[in-house]
């Protein structure tokens, strides 16, 4: 409750630079949590940028060509990303393990190439620019992204407390057995991918209007896809808090390195992935549970 009130008055308490950082962090949290929703079914997407880019371009082009309200454009981008995920998922989520991951990388790269080859429709390598969101009012942008983040967290909470949690976990742990127990694996994997795509697409739409300028190389780029998976892996998978905590820390490290060196975030992603994979397979939350809590007399699981 106190946290909710703090979130509402937050823009009054911080300066513009910090507010901007917060908006960027919330945006990343949405992408991290969305990636984690799909990961709960055992599927590793390395092509979230494809969905992000679809959302970004849908929102930007709808504004540029039809003067659609930015928020409606973001919604349209989210819905389109979801539809694309349904089609792509239906075709590729029958494949097991690494094949789906490879397909998602190819998907994002293919979109990037298509965009570069069709400059008349998409703006090509020159990208698309839009006027600042809400006339440059960062507070309004903050409230919009806060609402979407709240919706994402609510969705994850809903998944966790519904029968979906059982289906997702069962598929992740043993797809063949889940299938024999009455769970249609493809159906639930596609559903998870669609939910993930909706929010990632919305994030893309928000980014295009907030940033005022997008190019294919960036919004369809591997950097975004990697960011989507580094943050939840760092924080802790298959939890509500994991992706949130992971994002805060990754963003803080990234910002520090960006100010200190350029290209800082790329170093951060690389280092974090190596450290997490080697030393803390359950992420920060796992580390907390296994190493820190016992120091206060907690019970080791």
């Amino acid at each position, binding site marked *: 409750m106190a946290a909710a009130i703090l979130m509402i008055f937050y823009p009054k308490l911080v300066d513009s630079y910090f507010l901007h950082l917060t908006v960027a962090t919330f945006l990343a949290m949405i992408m991290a949590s969305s990636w984690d929703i799909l990961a709960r079914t055992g599927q590793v997407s390395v092509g979230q940028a494809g969905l992000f880019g679809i959302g970004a371009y849908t929102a930007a082009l709808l504004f540029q060509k039809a003067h659609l309200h930015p928020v409606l454009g973001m919604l349209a981008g989210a819905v389109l990303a979801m539809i694309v995920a349904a089609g792509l998922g239906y075709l590729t989520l029958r494949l097991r393990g690494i094949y789906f991951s490879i397909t998602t990388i190819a998907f994002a790269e293919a979109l990037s190439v298509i965009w570069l080859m069709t400059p008349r429709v998409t703006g090509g390598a020159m990208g698309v620019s839009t006027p600042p969101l809400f006339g440059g009012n960062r507070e309004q942008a903050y409230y919009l992204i806060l609402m979407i983040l709240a919706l994402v967290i609510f969705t994850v909470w809903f998944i966790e407390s519904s029968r979906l949690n*059982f289906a997702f976990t*069962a598929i992740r*742990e043993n797809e*063949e057995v889940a*299938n024999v*127990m*009455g*769970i*249609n*694996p493809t159906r639930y994997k596609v559903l998870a991918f669609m939910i993930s795509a909706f929010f990632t697409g919305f994030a893309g739409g928000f980014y295009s209007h907030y940033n005022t300028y997008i190019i294919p190389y960036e919004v369809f780029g591997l950097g975004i896809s990697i960011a989507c998976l580094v943050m939840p892996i760092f924080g802790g998978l298959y939890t509500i808090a994991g992706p949130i905590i992971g994002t805060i820390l990754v963003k803080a490290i990234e910002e520090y390195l960006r100010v200190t060196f350029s290209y800082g975030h790329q170093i951060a992603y690389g280092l974090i992935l190596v450290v997490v994979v080697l030393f803390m397979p359950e992420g920060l939350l796992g580390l907390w549970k296994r190493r820190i809590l016992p120091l206060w007399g907690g019970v080791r699981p």
Partner: protein
Amino acid sequence: MREHEKNFLANEREHDQTMETPFLLEVKGLTKHFGGLAAVQKVSFEIRRGEIVSLIGPNGAGKTTIFNLISGVYGPDSGDILLDRQSLIGQRPFEVCQKGIGRTFQIMQPFPHMTVLENVVTSGLFGRVPKISMRQAEEEARELCQLVGLGDRQGAFPRNLTVADQKRIEIARALAVKPKLLLLDEVMSGLTPIETGEAIKLVLGLRDHGATIFLIEHVMKVVMGISDRVVVLHHGEKIAEGTTTEVANDSRVIEAYLGERIDEREEASC
């Protein structure tokens, strides 16, 4: 004329959906090849409601393949499988499950990061038609845990349990779908004599509650003790079918088991 009339009546029966056939499961000419190897070849048999039927045969005879064909994990090359007269061919495993077939796996495969109770709840939530609420699934799962003897280990994780208890999870999960037909794949192997005794009691108890059970078993004492009928496979073909006594004295069965009489072999191994 009479002959004709008979046929007509038979046809009429065939189409009368309300008529109960004595057979819950009918397997007709089932064949499955893996590459050039015939894993199962023209196997036919039936299982009546309320029966306990065992499927036995030496290693590699195709027993688990038959289970995988029935539960839809593999599609057969030819032949038909009917549950309550409805063909299961082309149905995916989750559809077969929802039509009323619950199964266990030879190598225990509980979901490792779910508790015993959650393992059983999962099966009840998705294997039942019509769907049941989460609360009902949990209540039923608790009852099933009691029934199979896991009442006090509902909150435990599978890796901390004994082989026998992991087999109990398998059975509880299979039962949670309220199956018309229960397929048990070697649920007694690897158990101590006391545990085997408990498992036999459990299976007989399930039958008394009206379950129809089809089991693969290596432990001959169990097969001979609880089966109404036995189907014997050898090199993918059915070589015998009948009551336990009939099968134990069948020359082809004796030959398949390397010339030993089945009851002797069991005693020798004890």
